[in-house]
């Protein structure tokens, strides 16, 4: 192959590389801190409320709550048993207190680490006695 044709071919390949790289970077979706946004409302024993907003790619609520340091808990028979939320502990053995989990307005039928999360979902952790 003549030298000029070779150089032309090399330049054409380089141009193609640049074009393809440009297409890729121009069309790839923007990254976000997390793919889903959820809110968690905490209602303390004194009925004060705090709302926490998280961005996450996690599939289940328990992972988010633990990783964000909002809750502490133990692995129980039915999954994560939350014992402390936002620094306040609920000790069932003392006064029957526990942290009730709500999905929206509905009482959750499963533990936090078995609760799937979707973008825009809201949850509540309510200090409850009895």
């Amino acid at each position, binding site marked *: *192959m003549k030298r000029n044709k*070779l150089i032309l071919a090399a330049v054409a390949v380089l141009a193609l590389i640049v074009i393809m790289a440009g297409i890729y970077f121009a069309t*790839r979706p923007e990254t976000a801190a997390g793919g889903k946004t959820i809110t968690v409302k905490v209602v303390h024993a004194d009925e004060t409320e705090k709302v926490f907003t998280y961005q996450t790619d996690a599939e289940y609520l328990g992972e988010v709550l633990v990783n964000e340091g909002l809750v502490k808990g133990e692995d129980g028979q039915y999954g994560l048993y939350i014992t402390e939320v936002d620094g306040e502990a609920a000790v069932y053995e003392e006064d029957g207190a526990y942290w009730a989990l709500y999905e929206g307005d509905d009482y959750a039928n499963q533990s936090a680490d078995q609760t799937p999360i979707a973008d825009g979902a809201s949850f509540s952790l309510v200090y409850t006695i009895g």
Partner: protein
Amino acid sequence: MMGLPNIEPVSLLVMLFAVVFGKKAVYPIYLYVVLEFAFYGLNLWSVNYLYIWLILAAAAWLLRGMTHPLGWALLSGVFGLLFGALCAPVYLVTGGPAFALSWWISGIPYDLLHCAGNFFLALVLFQPLRKLMTRLYQNMITR
């Protein structure tokens, strides 16, 4: 070369088979394809493999008079660069134009890697291996 996505010596070998064996290159090429099917099972990519290596072999055969290593490196590199585009027709049929286009675009980083790997492998190895294989093949057929 597992663990290095799209870094493969197959392109180099296909080009060598084409320039050394001519039409008989289809035998080792499709033996490779059958072995791939046997090891990894059949999937959509299997359809790609039925035609894609033939494209490179045909291009190499047409350019068999080329002697400059850079020329062969560019051919192999371009094949790697266009690998995704050459595979896309299968996904065009199965998923439609939008799916095929997004599939191709999302694979561009791998195509770029493929291009670089193919380019450097061919640049270094094509000419010496061509000389060796040509000599060996000539010795074999003249016995």
